[in-house]
């Protein structure tokens, strides 16, 4: 071993040495090490005490704890280190094109869609949004389901939003900023709109709302592939879309159409969520796959897109939705809440990947 070797045990502790060992920590989603990714901030060495911030791309990072523990263990292994203090911070990256649009305070827009109605799309959208909010992200939820808005009930907000001048002020509930297209009309009246009206209403809910600074704006879409979908894909650069389906083959086959529509408009698919995956009998705890099993997983594998998880038919999800308190907020330790939170974390991880990979489109 040469005397100038950086690992020489007798040389004093240096920033280079600390960064050298931290380079061994990989972000499994972004597939690069945390030093190259620029995640290490405020590195300080005070004799044997090392402190730094680990600045991730989302507060809802699914592998946050592993990365922190691995970083601490590696730095502690360096000779001369007595104490390691790591502060976890996060900064959600913005989708490249968004900063130039009217939504410049919004970093990512994620659509939640399904092929047919009644698959629990709004339940999933609300719980993903609430989970990200609970993790510390700034989250907005736009309920774009004009034909049957259920999201207001799930958040306990059934009054129309207030306006200041010609700007709407989003309502706040369960840590989310919220606007519902359905609340722009009276709640007990059916909404019969032609395409151009749906188009106009969505544009208003995007651009005429004071969203402020948001890490994620989740858009709950109506079922199918209609005007709202197309307007959304054309009006803003979406970071991606989440597809919700039931395990049943029919449900999945229709979801494929929604998926293809997003692909045609170059909206990345962040993954498939299988809802109503199974039913756990409250009496005997046996698991029943009422709508079949594994359909979502198989479809995701065939299409080469991430499978985000299986959500059971759970009475608690429904009762929490009905009283306006999403299960991830009201009963965060319930098994279904854990599942939903893991799905939200996977969505956040996929968003991070997309913001690194997204092509920068420039028009001069």
């Amino acid at each position, binding site marked *: 071993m040469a005397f100038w070797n950086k690992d020489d045990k007798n040389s004093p502790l240096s920033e280079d040495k600390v960064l050298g060992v931290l380079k061994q920590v990989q972000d499994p989603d972004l597939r690069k090490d945390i030093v190259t990714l620029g995640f290490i901030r405020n590195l300080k060495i005070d004799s044997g005490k090392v402190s730094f911030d680990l600045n991730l791309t989302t507060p809802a990072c699914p592998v946050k704890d592993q990365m922190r523990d691995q970083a601490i263990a590696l730095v502690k292994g360096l000779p001369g280190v007595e104490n390691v203090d790591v502060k976890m911070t996060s900064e959600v990256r913005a989708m490249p094109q968004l900063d130039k649009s009217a939504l410049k305070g919004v970093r990512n827009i994620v659509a939640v869609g399904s092929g047919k109605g009644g698959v629990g799309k709004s339940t999933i959208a609300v719980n993903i949004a609430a989970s990200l909010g609970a993790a510390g992200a700034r989250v907005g939820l736009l309920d774009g389901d004009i034909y049957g808005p259920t999201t207001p009930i799930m958040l306990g907000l059934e009054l129309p939003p207030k306006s200041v001048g010609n700007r709407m002020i989003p309502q706040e509930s369960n840590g989310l900023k919220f606007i519902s297209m359905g609340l722009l009309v009276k709640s007990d009246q059916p909404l019969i709109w032609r395409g151009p009206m749906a188009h106009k209403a969505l544009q208003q809910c995007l651009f005429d709302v004071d969203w402020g600074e948001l890490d994620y704006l989740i858009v709950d879409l109506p079922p199918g592939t209609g005007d709202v979908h197309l307007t959304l*894909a054309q009006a803003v650069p979406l970071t991606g879309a989440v597809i919700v389906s039931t395990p049943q083959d029919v449900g999945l086959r229709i979801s494929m159409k929604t998926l293809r529509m997003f692909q045609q408009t170059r*909206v990345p698919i962040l993954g498939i969520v299988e809802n109503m995956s199974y039913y756990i009998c409250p009496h005997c705890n046996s698991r029943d796959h009422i709508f079949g099993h594994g359909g979502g997983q198989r479809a995701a594998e065939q299409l080469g897109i991430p499978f985000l998880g299986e959500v059971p038919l759970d009475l608690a999800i429904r009762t929490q939705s009905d009283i306006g308190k999403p299960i991830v907020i009201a009963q965060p330790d319930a098994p279904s809440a854990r599942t939903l939170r893991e799905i939200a974390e996977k969505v956040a991880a996929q968003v991070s990947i997309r913001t690194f990979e997204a092509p920068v489109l420039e028009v001069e």
Partner: protein
Amino acid sequence: MIIWADGQDSRYIAPRLRGMCPCASCKDEMTGTRIILPIHIPDNLEFRKIELVGQYALQFEWSDGHRTGIYSFEYLRELADSASRGLDDSGHRAE
């Protein structure tokens, strides 16, 4: 001119591109037959405005006021590629 991610660049001539507008008033939606052809467009037509549509297309506003055509990047690349093979009547040249 478009510079593509693969390094190729394609040049478009305004009146020719206007003549290949994919919108429903320039091209029959059911049959795909062109209603407006490049020969219908005056040579002095110009680009007035170019906007991004989501992340999949460009929308042009032309000096004749027309602005409903959404040209997907796939379509734009197709036009350039077929022009460079000398196959189409749009008159584009990939340089």
